């Protein structure tokens, strides 16, 4: 496959209450092998997926939050989080997991994967995509 497309995975569901976040993440991890231009957007309750400190010991569900930390190793390093969605929910950037990736082209410097963007910026990003998959 010679073509490279811009794929965006749009996440709008909170984790655990429904399976969309978990199964959405599984698509992203598999999709990473296809060497497309990949990003993720977190809008609305989707921002809760990145909340720090998730612990499912007492509810006996599968804690899949560590998998977000692995995204950098899969070269998925553009996670756009809508600022307005965070604010409406009483959250800020410090509430989110500190996700990073190592930039091969910059002497493996460790860089942040999460980018807090405005609603207007996110609207622009959506327009730039070739394929949008919604979870």
């Amino acid at each position, binding site marked *: 496959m010679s073509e490279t497309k811009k794929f965006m995975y749009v996440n709008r569901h909170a984790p655990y*209450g429904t399976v969309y976040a978990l199964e959405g993440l599984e698509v992203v991890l598999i999709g990473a092998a296809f060497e497309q231009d990949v990003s993720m957007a977190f809008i609305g309750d989707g921002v*809760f997926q990145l909340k720090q400190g*998730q*612990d499912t010991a007492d509810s006996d569900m599968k804690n899949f939050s560590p998998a977000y930390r692995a995204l950098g190793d899969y070269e998925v390093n553009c996670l756009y989080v809508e600022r307005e969605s965070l604010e409406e929910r009483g959250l800020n950037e410090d509430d989110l997991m500190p996700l990073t990736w190592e930039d091969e082209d910059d002497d493996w410097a460790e860089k942040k994967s999460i980018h807090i963007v405005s609603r207007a910026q996110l609207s622009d990003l959506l327009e730039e995509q070739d394929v949008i998959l919604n979870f």
Partner: protein
Amino acid sequence: MLHTVNKSPHDSSSLRTCLSLAKPGSDLLLIEDGVYGALSGSIHSDTIAERLNSVTIYALGPDLKARGISEDRLISGIKVTGYDGFVELASGNDKVQSWL
């Protein structure tokens, strides 16, 4: 009467509908994605806090913990309980209305 809400107040009308119909003296237990309604500082927090003088509001601890919400982030006055407490609330009230 015990009311349960299992949906995020940001995504669903369930909590709003529940609060519009719950009588003073009712118990309300937030479960699953409903526990996001217990977070302080959100656009819904004030509306929810105002009802605490007439409705006793609980949030399910295991669901808060799964979602990374520590108790110091909750609206002041909301109580945290576990599955045992859920059973006690369901038996202690005469019936349960689940706002799905």
